[in-house]
């Protein structure tokens, strides 16, 4: 362990007025009244309501049903793809309340009441068009996940530089090797033109 010195003393922080006192100030915001209503425990099938691409949907799922299976088998939205079980391909990317998440590692029950946008919901926008005009797809199986990731990326970085694009879109795997074209598509989107 490092030596406590002036200006940075963890042990003093721990022992003295530090953590415990601070804990009450930070964690006291917990609601004390919630215990009155017991937390429901879901076992077996349950109904979950979601907003998917702007439409209210109610689905019947088990706790273990992933959002990916719900979209693909119950809502016939097969744009998000099952590629890796561990989310390392990004092929199942959807937006949950605007945030990019892997539907393959998300439980449907955990997104109850939330708003989901899938690739199909973006299909009339600029991004798919830029993918087409820059030919940022070959077999196309990874493409929907990439399109959603680009949507999330551009929401965060509307004026991204090429360097930022290269650094920021590493959550998706393409096997055909369309990265060079995806890069061009995103550069074109930032510039506001989709011409390849």
């Amino acid at each position, binding site marked *: 362990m490092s030596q406590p010195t002036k200006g940075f003393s963890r042990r003093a922080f721990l022992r003295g007025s530090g953590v415990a006192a601070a804990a009450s100030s930070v964690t006291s915001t917990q609601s004390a009244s919630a215990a009155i209503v017991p937390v429901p425990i879901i076992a077996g099938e349950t109904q979950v309501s979601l907003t998917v691409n702007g439409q209210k949907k109610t689905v019947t799922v088990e706790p273990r049903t992933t959002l990916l299976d719900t979209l693909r088998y119950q809502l016939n939205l097969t744009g998000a793809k099952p590629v890796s*079980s561990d989310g390392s391909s990004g092929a199942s990317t959807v937006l949950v309340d605007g945030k990019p998440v892997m539907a393959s590692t998300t439980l449907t029950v955990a997104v109850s009441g939330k708003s989901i946008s899938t690739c199909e919901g973006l299909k009339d926008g600029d991004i798919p068009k830029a993918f087409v005009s820059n030919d940022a797809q070959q077999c*196309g199986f990874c493409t929907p996940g990439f399109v959603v990731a680009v949507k999330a990326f551009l929401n965060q970085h509307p004026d991204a530089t090429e360097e930022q694009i290269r650094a920021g879109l590493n959550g998706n795997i393409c096997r055909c090797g369309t*990265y*060079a074209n995806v890069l061009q598509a995103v550069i074109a989107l930032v510039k506001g033109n989709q011409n390849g």
Partner: protein
Amino acid sequence: MAEVDYRWPENHKMRWIGKRVDRLDGLEKSGGTAKYTYDVNLPNQLIVRGLGCPHAHCNVLAVDISEAEKVPGVVYIHRLNAPGPNDDPVEIRADGTLLVAVAAENEAAAAEGVSKVKVQYKLLDAFTADHDLQSAEANGRTKPAGGGIELDEALGEPGDDEDEEEWENKVMQHLFDTSAHVVEGEYGIDSITHCCLEPHGATVHWVDGKLKVYLSTQNVSQADDGFAGALEITADDVDVTCDYIGGGFGSKFQPNYWGIAAAEISKVTGRPVKFMLTRDQELKIAGNRPSGYIKVKLGADANGVVRVWDSLHWGTSGFNGSTVAVGNIPYVFRPKSFRRKATGIVTDNEPSVAWRAPNHPQACAITQTAYDDLAAKMGVDSLDIFLRNLENIDTPEKAPVYAEQLRIAADLINWRKHWHPHGKGKKSGAVVEGLGIGIHKWAGTANSSNCLLKIHADGGVESYCGTQDLGTGTRTVCAMVLAETFGLTLDEVKVNIGSSTYPFSGASGGSTTVGAVTESHRRAAQDALAKVLDLVAKKLDVSADILDAVGGKIVARDYSGKEMTWKQACSLIGIQPLEVNSSYARGTASPLSSENVAGCQMAHVAVDTETGQVKIKRMVAVQDMGLIINRKTAESQIYGAMIMSIAAALFEQRINDPKTGVFVNSELADYRLPRLGDIGNLVVHLHEPESERARGVIGLGEPPAISGCTAISNAVCNALGVRVPTIPLTPKRVLDALRTAKG
């Protein structure tokens, strides 16, 4: 009607061919509405999951499915490679081999069912050390894989009383003794797996005794035979559909045993069945590329022209025990005298299947690295060594094409500015840079293809062809050819592909698709147009010879002003649509397509000498492909192939556990692939001198996927002054090579 003279229009008249056209199915793909096999959901379907064997080599003694049957939602359990209650044990030779298939109401239940199957195994010795020839020999795991010798004719022949082999040894020794430069080296390239993002699999159902299959396949027209043979029905009883396929690089030609199982389960249960492999199964059993390791000695003259080559190579294609085909060694370069021998190694892995440009990337990587080491040894520019050795290549007529391509590539990568002798570059921090080259060849012969073309009285044009789109842009090139021929726009023609009910078209393998479908579509379109022009000629009272289809009209070239719109022309057809069925048979000489292309790639890399990390700064591909149909998708093919080369050069490898033989990195988190940030700047140059362009269409899928790996390996060697012998060039291997060189 005169016989139709099949040819492409003159260059200046082309309105579609050679242009940059967006793929017609692009928005379906990028909008997420394209339906792949995995996306096909049939009412009341069952989901099937397979149980993969967790051992590389074992006997399966018994399988207990009783607990699995109790899992809620499990409907049926099917044995694949598993003994029944009174059967003999089943020997398994590859990790991941499917033993049992569980059919259930949904994915989760099927997976839970699989987890409840109990299997008794008897473990057997596993061997997977394909790089270790000595160990393979000691374990009785080798198989001869061919070889031979060719000697410069000037060296004469053995005398009648001389032992031929002794004489050959003597001659080889003499050649080495009299060479100005001799290089000895060991090189290698590991096995990689196909890792299609859409795993292999099928969705099937039986309708009135006929099998309807949605199959993720590169071979729509012939996959029905695979089902028919296995299920003892006729191919007419099987319809295969594949509108979209999520990755096919040579492993998706057959239904595979799991596809057959899907049909059998569907038959037993009376319900539609979807059976897709899991990710780890996809990596383990659905396709891999053989490894190749080589010991080489080469001798060159004072100019660095190689005059003699002597090599032994080995590697594995899995439990059938083959390696990189010996005929490809040495690759492209063919010294006047060479001897080569190959040994296959039998490992407990699934047999390999064709991966993009079978044998060529490995052959290139274990040949042209040695040529680059010659440059290093001589202290001469690698580009000069490659250029000088063009005098001895296996396709001598291509030498000027290679020379021109090397010149173009060198210019695009600024070779003369950035090149330095091996290991003598400027160091910036811990980083050194380097340049490397590889050259390649490929046939790209057009496959057989048939096209049924219908022209309707309302002007509608529809084609039907049993081909498929792997990402090639097949629909688009077909439409471009039809539109070109009829003088129409792309939205005025409709292309139908992806069904075995359409006329036969060959499998998409070996860069044969664009050649095949443009042959059949151009032929069909020219045949049909000739008939339409005959009708128009009669109506306008002119000779059909002076009619052109252009800009949506049929126009007379005689300045008479006689013309009619395409629609008016088609109204002459009558109620029954005009139908033609035109075909091209593989191997037929044709002005529309040809074969044999040349290409080269160069890489500019940066290597961190303290960490062994390699970064691509720039890669250049110069590729000839005859006549380009769609410039945009042609370029995409090359970008993709370069990125695949980066993947194989720096990242990909199948890792087998040295003790158990198990494929340990079969999940995507462990099977490393490049990501968008890893590719550097890629430059594609379509090399289309009139001499090559005039030859017609030649396939493009494989050739640019060959030499990039070699270029990267050579660039790393140029940077470090040290050869990292085995590809992929991981940080560990780079550091190991540097340490070995230090001694």
